[in-house]
């Protein structure tokens, strides 16, 4: 597949706007999970802006595609995302984490319209997504369920219970789950391979019965191609995309730094982050101009 230059440009712009609004929200909240938010930014941009059948004006449409973001600590990415989609007022983002706010570190699906599931306790999203997919298939609905996993949360045994079941129930709806792992290589205490080795990670997914591909999770056209293939879903197996990403991508002091799983911004850091993100946006749009067709 080739994204048209126009579409690619629009997706890059949306992802850049999303990172901008996320760092603003971190700034308003005083601190936040910037690392895992930025690594997932391109993934959720493609899900919500390119692939998922999801109309923000009708977020409870029973036939919509579902999205379960199992790494629930990225509420500070999802709230700005929903704001850009028109589901949350921008002003409301300024209340993030404040007492009485509807928005906090882990979003609540009973308070945020359009959010298909509350998550937060890691390793739960896979079973939730599978349940949604099984229900859809039973009712004769054709919707897909996107599942976004963090790599660190794949330490949880429940991820693999659900992975096994997703393949096992492929014909009964499991195949409609599209798993995308944000492989940002870092968790709270350090690199995933130091804390609890995941590699050979792709082989694990393959062994659990998934059509598995590893792709650069910050390369919009490459990621789009992988998701398109999974969405089309040739063959009998469910699809797993391991999106190789950089934790904290786009901000110099945070990128690749596990200590930026969660952090606080002061004025200086915020200004640096904004300048970095502006340069990051320019660099990526320059690539669109150069390579886009």
């Amino acid at each position: 597949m080739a994204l048209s230059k126009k579409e690619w440009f629009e997706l890059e712009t949306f992802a850049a706007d999303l990172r901008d609004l996320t760092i603003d929200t971190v700034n308003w909240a005083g601190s936040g999970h910037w690392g895992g938010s930025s690594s997932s930014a391109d993934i959720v941009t493609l899900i919500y802006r390119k692939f998922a059948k999801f109309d923000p004006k009708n977020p409870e449409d029973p036939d919509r595609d579902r999205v379960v973001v199992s790494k629930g600590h990225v509420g500070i990415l999802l709230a700005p995302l929903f704001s850009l989609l028109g589901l949350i007022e921008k002003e409301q983002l300024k209340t993030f984490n404040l007492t009485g706010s509807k928005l906090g570190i882990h979003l609540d699906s009973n308070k945020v319209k359009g959010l298909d599931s509350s998550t937060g306790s890691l390793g739960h999203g896979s079973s939730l997504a599978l349940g949604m997919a099984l229900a859809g298939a039973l009712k004769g609905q054709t919707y897909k369920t996107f599942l976004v996993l963090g790599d660190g949360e794949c330490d949880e045994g429940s991820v693999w219970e659900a992975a096994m079941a997703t393949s096992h129930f492929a014909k009964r709806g499991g195949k409609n789950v599209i798993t995308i792992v944000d492989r940002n290589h870092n968790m709270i205490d350090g690199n995933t391979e130091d804390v609890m080795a995941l590699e050979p990670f792709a082989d694990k997914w393959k062994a659990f019965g998934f059509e598995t591909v590893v792709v650069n999770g910050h390369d919009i056209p490459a990621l789009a191609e992988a998701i398109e293939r999974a969405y089309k879903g040739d063959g009998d197996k469910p699809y797993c995309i391991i999106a190789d990403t950089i934790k904290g991508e786009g901000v110099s002091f945070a990128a690749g730094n596990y200590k930026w799983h969660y952090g606080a911004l002061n004025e200086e850091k915020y200004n640096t982050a904004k300048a970095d993100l502006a340069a990051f946006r320019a660099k990526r749009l320059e690539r669109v101009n150069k390579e886009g067709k």
Partner: protein
Amino acid sequence: MAGGITFTAVDSTKLATAEIFGRTIAELGAENPNIVCISPDLATSTKMADFLAKYPERFYNVGIAEQNMIGIAAGMAKSGLIPFASCFSVFASLRALDQVHTDVCYQNVNVKIIGTHGGTSFGQAGSTHHAIEDIGVIRPLVNMTVIVPADGIETANAVKAAAATPGPFYIRINRGFDNVVYSTPDYGFKVGKAVVMNEGTDLTIIACGSCVYQAMQAASMLKHDQGLSIRVLNMHTIKPIDREAVLAAVKETRKIITVEDHTVIGGLGSAVAEVVVEGGKACAFRKLGLQDKWSAIGLHEDLLAMHEIDAEGIVKNVLEVMKMDFEADEDWGDEV
């Protein structure tokens, strides 16, 4: 109540409690195409096989993976189904607790959990398979309704009520046969409303599950041998608890004994005690159950006796409580 489903005392004596659950869910499945069943390799043990035979497309065996079972159930409920997830009570409440807490109760979805092999009813399996903390563990979860039916007929009533009422339910039933308490399903079962099994004025026994039958036996023995007038309440719904019935027992009998096949910490006894204390009136009170001790291996009826929650054990404790010295407060006008 769902139409057409009735069980009699004869059924109740011929069928294990879980079999009555199995038949009930199979019949409910005929009425509501959104009802699905999920089992972690326990379709036979939890008697979901009837449902499986009739509706294989609505039955999901997830293998030995209780956490996955509850998470899948929550996802299904989010998409409009009414999943009944069933496994041993000890694993539903402990192994899958995080999923019950976050996926089911926090999201307030329509998942029905049927915990089988409740209390010490799987006696010979030992403490790994006894559920002696499940009520205490599940009861604090927001949005959860907790029911411990007294026998097979009440199990059918509870399952029907759960299917008809939106929101999370935990229904705890026993392995094997329960002594029959009800001869007909039409005794006015209502979630959150205790059933007066026996009227009395000297002391109230508040029981749930298999202990209801034992309490009724004890009341009968105490009447014949001691001339005592014992009220017996079947507190089938532990949450929301019937505060009115508890406070009436405090006011009218001034002595309460709770009886449950569960540790005395956190279960029925604790739930009743919370109401009694908040009522602000003096009341002789004793909790019967497992006294913060692991159970032993043995037949269920022997374990009930060991923990003094069989009829004889209850009689012994009633006689002791009847002698307890406490200051009755006759002035109910200052009731909080």
